[in-house]
Each structure stands twice: as structure tokens, then as C-alpha cells.
């Protein structure tokens, strides 16, 4: 598979390696931030080569660049590309029985646009005045050239535009692929929940990434062409513009982005708890519907990020109600996961452990967001580490653990080799516990009033007593970083020496495991499967009786039932599809 291959599996692999590289970079930047909060101004171990003048210690300008780049790298270059670029590209066509994505060239192009953005991100570290430093939200006027003059801020803004372009292309590609390229018999009601999650998130990408692009382009024009869309105050000449418009545009994208980052993980959790409870997902339609409802509401809640911006009371009240409303479908979904476990036969495999860990961190992250959705309780917590802990639990820890649930689950399919189960479990469990330590510590510090993005929080008398807490949190963060070595060892060892994976190691019925080889060849399937049933046909009595196993492929004909209506309908349609391909 060359670098020019248009095959969705090859593109997925490119995203996987690039995404993991950026995940490492983003993680190291996070550790630098944590170090600063525990031992402010002290030399960061191993950073002296990069910061010779300060002997490796973060200075205030370096620190602002570090937290800005941490956010941007993680969101745009690590988590999204890993969930969509790697897992989405790989799984989606296989799971719906398609031979590839609807637009293979677009998907390859999307990767290269993302890669260009990645190069710009890395290059920005080398230019004078360093990379971007106006925060990942890049609020103007701070992010305009009057206040952040370096080339780095411009490069990074263009890089975000590249990542957005790539996200838009795969969003569009996934939507069209799911809508048009499903195998015969793969009705909407038979889609794995993973596909539902990816589909809704892709719709959000298509709708809201252009909003980010608009805001970013206007910001670039303010930086480079002398326009004043978002400039007001002393830096404005003549009339000027309005910085608040940028905030609205940014969060109109930014809040759906949170759901973009978590929806694929939700879908995977939904599938994995069913697979490893050996029973059909409880309330499949309710769960898919809940994900759809969250997606529909996601663009209508964003202004809770602006509760303290002086917005009109009418807007504030409206967004408070809408924000609280979104917790209802989330609860339905969560309860369905719990009900799926109940009366099942639970198997604690590494993907299942990761799925359960995702539920835990996502649950806590969701719960801690409630107080931020109501205006009054948001006031003391706004802009504190409580917010940081909350959203890192949901879109950081939950997305990360969801990603690894998917990676551990599909790795044998991607590479044909089986990862070491024991190491995988150690990695998942230690990561989950340490995530709770890190972000739990941040919630506590934020509750006590510690504000975000402070180079030295202890400038404030009222925060001085938080130093020991922050040191403990930092220790957890470094241990969390160290725990990732377990994954790297497992990955490298498996790719070199790992034993060949069995055909269907998890004993589930979805198409990628029952109709394609590991790894799947060109075109995925020797024959396009004809789908007969939903994704979670587990522990069905007639299957147990006739086949002696608790699973059956989505396209597997059960002897004696084949002549029933559903199967024949599907068989009738397959001939027309074949003649087209």
C-alpha cells in the first residue's frame, strides 16, 4: 500500500500514524503545562535543548504558546484525525458492506491537506516569536497582529483551516457513503451504532466546520489584509468591528465540535457493550435516536460559553434552557448502555474495559457539566479549571478511551495481528484511573477558584493553598504519560512479532469480522454481502440451537430460515447492485 493508494484502509493507516504522532506531541505539551502548575518556573526535565536561555524552564511567552498548541494539536491534529481519519476511514465502509468510500480521491486529498496543516503546525515552532499563543480559541483582538504579531500565529491559523478542510471532506465523504453505499439489506435500522455515531458526527462536520472556516478566514484577513471584522478599541482605526461576533462564530462551531469528538466514541461504546455482554443493545433505536437528538441540539446550545460576555438576558435564558435540555437524550443513551449490560454475559476483554472506562469518564464529565449549563452556577466556575476538568473528561479522556476501545477492537482487522490482551488491559485500566486523578484534581482546583491559563496561579493569594493539590495532579499526569509506554511497547512488539489474529477473535457478527479477511484486501469483500439482520444478533436461541454458537454474521444465512421474506428481498436487490459494480 503506497502513499498514493486511494484505498480507504491505506488512508486510515496514514491518519493513524500521523494522529498518534500528534497525540504524543499534544501529550508532551500537556505535561509541560502540568509541570508549570506544580513547580512554576522550574526547569522542565528534558526541555533544556529547546529552551536553552531559560535552561528548560517555561517563560510566560513560552507557556502561552504551550497551552495554545496543546489544545489545537489535540483537537485538530490528534483526536479528530484518529477517531474519523483512522477508525472512521477504516471501519465505516467495511461495517456497511461497501467496497470503499464514495469519493476515494477526496479522502486521499483530505489526508494530504491535513498533513500540510500538520507540517505548518510543526514549522510554527521554529519561527521567530514561536507558534500561536492566543489560546486555542484565538479570541481577537488578542489573536490579531497588533497583539500577537508573530508569523507563528498566522501559520497555525492556516493549519487549523487545513485541518478543518480535511474534516469537511471526510465528513462529506462519510455522509454520502452511509447514505448511498450500504450493502443490499443493510437498512438504516441494521447499521452498527458505531456507524450511527460516525454518521451524525459527519453531518455536524459538514454543517459546522464551514462556520469555523468563515471565522478563521475573517481572522486571517484581519491579520494580513488590514480588515477590521473583529477589531475594536485602541487597535481599531475608524469604525472597527466587533470581537464578540468572532466569539459567536467560534462557539457555533466549537460546541458541536465537542460532540464531533465524542459521537464516534458513543457509537463504539454502544456496540462494544452489546458485543461483550453477548446480547443485543438495549433500545437500539432509542440510542440511535438519542445520538441524533444530541446532534440536532448541538448547534443550539453553544452560547453557554458566553454566559459572562454580557449577552442579553433573553439570549442567556434561552441558551440555559437549551443547554440543560441536551442532557435528556444523553441520559437515555447512558441508561441504555447500562441496560445492555444487565442480563448479559459480560466479558471483560480489553475493548470492553476501554468501553466501560469511557462510560465512567464520560458519565462524570457529563455530570460535572450540569452546573456549567445554568447561568448562576456557571458564574463562579466559568473560566476555572472546573471547566477544564469537565471538558477534558468528556472530549479528552472519554474520546481517548473510546479511541482505544476501537483501536483494540479493530487492530486485528487492520493489521491481521493480535495485540497482547494483558498489556492492553493494563494500559486501559491505568489510563482510566490516572485520567480520573488528573481531571478530578483539576475539577477540585477549579472549584476552589483556580483560573485557567495562569502561568503562575500562586500570584493570587487566594490560590496559594492549591499548590499541593496541583502537585498531586501533576504526578498523576506524568504517570498517565508513562502508562502510554505500555501501549507503545504492545504496538511495536505486535507489529513485529505478534501472533496472527483469528478470523473473528471477538466472535461478533458485523460485516467486517464475518465477510472480510484480516486485513481486508482491495475492494474489501470477495462478494458484496447481503445483509440479513442487525449488528447485535447475539445469544439468539435459534442460532445457539442450530450453529452451537452465540453469534451469527449479519449476512450469514441460518439454515432453514433463509427462505423467509427478508432474505429473499435482499437477494433480489443484490443482482441489480452487482450489475452496477
Amino acid at each position, binding site marked *: 500500500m503506497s502513499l498514493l493508494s486511494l484505498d480507504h484502509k491505506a488512508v486510515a493507516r496514514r491518519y493513524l500514524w500521523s494522529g498518534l504522532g500528534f497525540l504524543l506531541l499534544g501529550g508532551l505539551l500537556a505535561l509541560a503545562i502540568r509541570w508549570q502548575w506544580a513547580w512554576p518556573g522550574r526547569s522542565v526535565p528534558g526541555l533544556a535543548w529547546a529552551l536553552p536561555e531559560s535552561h528548560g524552564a517555561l517563560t510566560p511567552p513560552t507557556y502561552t504558546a504551550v497551552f495554545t498548541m496543546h489544545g489545537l494539536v489535540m483537537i485538530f491534529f490528534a483526536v479528530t484525525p484518529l477517531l474519523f481519519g483512522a477508525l472512521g476511514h477504516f471501519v465505516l465502509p467495511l461495517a456497511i458492506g461497501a467496497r470503499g468510500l464514495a469519493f476515494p480521491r477526496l479522502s486521499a486529498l483530505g489526508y494530504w491537506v491535513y498533513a500540510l496543516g500538520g507540517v505548518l503546525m510543526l514549522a510554527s515552532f521554529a519561527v521567530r516569536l514561536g507558534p500561536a499563543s492566543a489560546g486555542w480559541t484565538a479570541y481577537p483582538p*488578542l489573536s490579531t497582529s497588533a497583539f500577537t504579531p508573530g508569523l507563528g500565529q498566522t501559520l497555525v491559523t492556516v493549519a487549523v483551516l487545513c485541518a478543518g478542510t480535511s474534516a469537511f471532506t471526510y465528513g462529506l465523504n462519510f455522509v454520502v457513503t452511509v447514505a448511498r453505499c450500504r450493502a443490499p439489506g443493510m437498512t438504516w435500522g441494521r447499521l452498527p451504532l458505531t456507524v450511527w455515531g460516525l454518521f451524525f458526527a459527519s453531518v455536524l462536520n459538514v454543517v459546522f466546520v464551514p462556520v469555523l472556516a468563515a471565522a478563521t478566514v475573517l481572522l486571517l484577513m484581519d491579520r494580513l489584509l488590514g480588515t477590521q471584522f473583529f477589531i475594536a*478599541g485602541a487597535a481599531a482605526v475608524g469604525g472597527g468591528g*466587533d470581537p464578540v461576533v468572532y466569539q459567536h462564530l467560534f462557539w457555533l462551531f466549537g460546541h458541536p465540535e465537542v460532540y464531533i469528538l465524542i459521537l464516534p466514541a458513543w457509537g463504539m461504546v454502544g456496540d462494544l457493550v452489546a458485543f461483550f455482554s453477548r446480547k443485543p443493545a*438495549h433500545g437500539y433505536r432509542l440510542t440511535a435516536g438519542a445520538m441524533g437528538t444530541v446532534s440536532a441540539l448541538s448547534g443550539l446550545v453553544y452560547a453557554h460559553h458566553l454566559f459572562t460576555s*454580557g449577552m442579553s438576558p433573553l439570549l442567556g435564558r434561552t441558551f440555559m434552557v437549551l443547554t440543560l435540555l441536551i442532557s435528556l437524550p444523553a441520559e437515555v443513551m447512558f441508561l441504555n448502555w447500562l*441496560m445492555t449490560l444487565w442480563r448479559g454475559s459480560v466479558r471483560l476483554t480489553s475493548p470492553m474495559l476501554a468501553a466501560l472506562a469511557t462510560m465512567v469518564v464520560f*458519565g462524570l464529565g457529563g455530570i*460535572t457539566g450540569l452546573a456549567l449549563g445554568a447561568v448562576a452556577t456557571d458564574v*463562579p466556575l466559568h473560566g476555572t479549571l472546573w471547566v477544564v476538568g469537565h471538558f477534558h473528561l468528556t472530549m479528552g479522556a472519554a474520546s481517548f478511551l473510546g479511541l482505544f476501545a476501537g483501536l483494540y477492537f479493530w487492530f486485528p482487522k487492520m493489521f491481521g495481528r493480535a495485540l497482547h490482551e494483558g498489556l492492553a488491559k493494563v494500559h486501559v485500566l491505568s489510563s482510566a484511573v490516572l485520567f480520573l486523578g488528573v481531571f478530578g484534581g483539576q475539577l477540585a482546583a477549579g472549584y476552589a477558584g483556580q483560573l485557567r491559563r495562569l502561568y503562575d496561579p500562586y500570584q493570587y493569594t487566594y490560590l*496559594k493553598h492549591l499548590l499541593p493539590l496541583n502537585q498531586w495532579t501533576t504526578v498523576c499526569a506524568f504517570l498517565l504519560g508513562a502508562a502510554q509506554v505500555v501501549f507503545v511497547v504492545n504496538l511495536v512488539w505486535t507489529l513485529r512479532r505478534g501472533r496472527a489474529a483469528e478470523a473473528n477473535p471477538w466472535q461478533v457478527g458485523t460485516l467486517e469480522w464475518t465477510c472480510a479477511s484480516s486485513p481486508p484486501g482491495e475492494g474489501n469483500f470477495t462478494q458484496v454481502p447481503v445483509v440479513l439482520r442487525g449488528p447485535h444478533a447475539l445469544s439468539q436461541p435459534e442460532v445457539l440451537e442450530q450453529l452451537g454458537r452465540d453469534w451469527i454474521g449479519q449476512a450469514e444465512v441460518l439454515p432453514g430460515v433463509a427462505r423467509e421474506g427478508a432474505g429473499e428481498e435482499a437477494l433480489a436487490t443484490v443482482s441489480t447492485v452487482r450489475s452496477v459494480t
Partner: protein
Amino acid sequence: MSTSVEEKSQPSSDTPTSTSTSARTLALPEDASVDGHRIDALLGWSHRFEAGMAALALGWMVVAVWRFRGSKRAASDGGTKRSRAWVLGLALSTFLVVDGALLVGSEGYLRDVLWNLDVPAKDPRTVRIEINAHQWSWEARYAGEDGRFNTPDDVVTWNDLRVPAGVPVWVQLVSTDVVHGFSLPNFRVKLDAIPGRVNQTWFRAAREGAWEVACYQHCGTSHYRMRGELRALSAEAYAAWLREAGRQAVQAYDVDDSAAHWGWEWKAP
């Protein structure tokens, strides 16, 4: 507990002191405002709900995994009509209780305090302050004894807010350069300072003492040093300070220093 101003005639000898021996890590900053306790109480309720929901969800998960791990048989259905109705019912009732309580509690505070500028507007004792945020300091303007802004007796301070305890303090806020965040952690006050617009809020200090002003929006390299002090004084001490500072301001007034005349006509709520 904050040390109160011991020598009321000499507030300048006082230092901000939220560092109290009783400072607990897992607590909100000490509340020194008249109205903030309502937020704190609501947050207290919200934590009870959070704890309840977390215990329910995690407990259920642990019990389910414990009880059904490796079971010989698994149910073959994706739930019954009844079980799905239970899910919907449980979700809906949790939502109504938890989100309903937060909404109602929050709305009460918004109506009575946060968005009710009638209180400072109607109280004759109200102190009005215009605050201009800069990279990286808080410049505050008091109208002086004539009660009008942008006149020679305006008192202007840097990173040094003084207010009388017990009376409404009405703040109008702008920024000269970038977006800043004006927060008084001990008074449950947060409001963005945005170039090109005047935002406003109000609060009441419950008692005399000294606290901190903090910037909560990333505003550049020295964001972390954008720290001010707020002293709540007795009504007499405050009046004495304003009188003396106004007298000095009149003496130092420079008609030609247009940059110093950034005040504005007080805006209606």
C-alpha cells in the same frame, strides 16, 4: 476567614488575605458578598445531584459487571416495551428533578440579582465605578463628589478598588485592547471586558476586608499578573478616602492629557 480591616482609618496597611488557615482545597473561595450565598447553595444542591447520579450510574455499572460477568446465558432481546419505557421514564424524571432544580434556582438568582440592575439603579447609596481593563492592569474611575464622570475630581486608581461594605456597587466595564475577564472570586462576580462595548454588573460586599481582583480571560503574556486588590471599607472610611483622593485629583488634573479622560457618561441599565 478574611481578616477585616483592623485600622479602619488606614486601609492601605491592609493586605489581601484569602489565605486563611482554614482554607480548604475542596471549597469555593470564601464568600464575602451579600448575595453570593444563593449561588453557593445552588451549587451545593447541584453537587448532591451530581453525587447521586454518579453513584447510581457507576453503582449500576459495577453491580451489572459483577453479577453478569461470564454468565452462562444472556438475554436474547434488545429490551421489552416495558424496559424501554423505564429507561425513558428514569431519564425524564432525573432530567426534570436535576435540570429543573438548576433552572429554577438559577432563574431566581438571575431575576433577583445578576440581571436585576434595578437594585443598584434605585438605591441612593449605590457606588458607581467605571473600569477600564488594559494589558495588564485594572484602571478604575470614581465620579468624585460631583457624581459625574470625566470631570476634574474623578478619582482614578490602578489595580486598587475601594468600595463601602453593605451598599450596591455598580460596575461598568470596558477594555482598551483585548478581551479581559473581570472577576471577584470572593464576590461571585465574573464579566468580560470587551473592546468596543460597555458591560455592567453589580455586587454588595457583606463586610469590611481585602480581597483580590483576577483576570479570567487569556489576555497575553502577563495575563497571570493582571491582579488587583479590592478593599471593602466602612461607609465613613470610604467617604473620607474618596474626599481626599478627589481633592488630590483636582490638584493634579491636566486638561491636555486627553488619554487620561477615558471616562464616559454613565450608561442606563
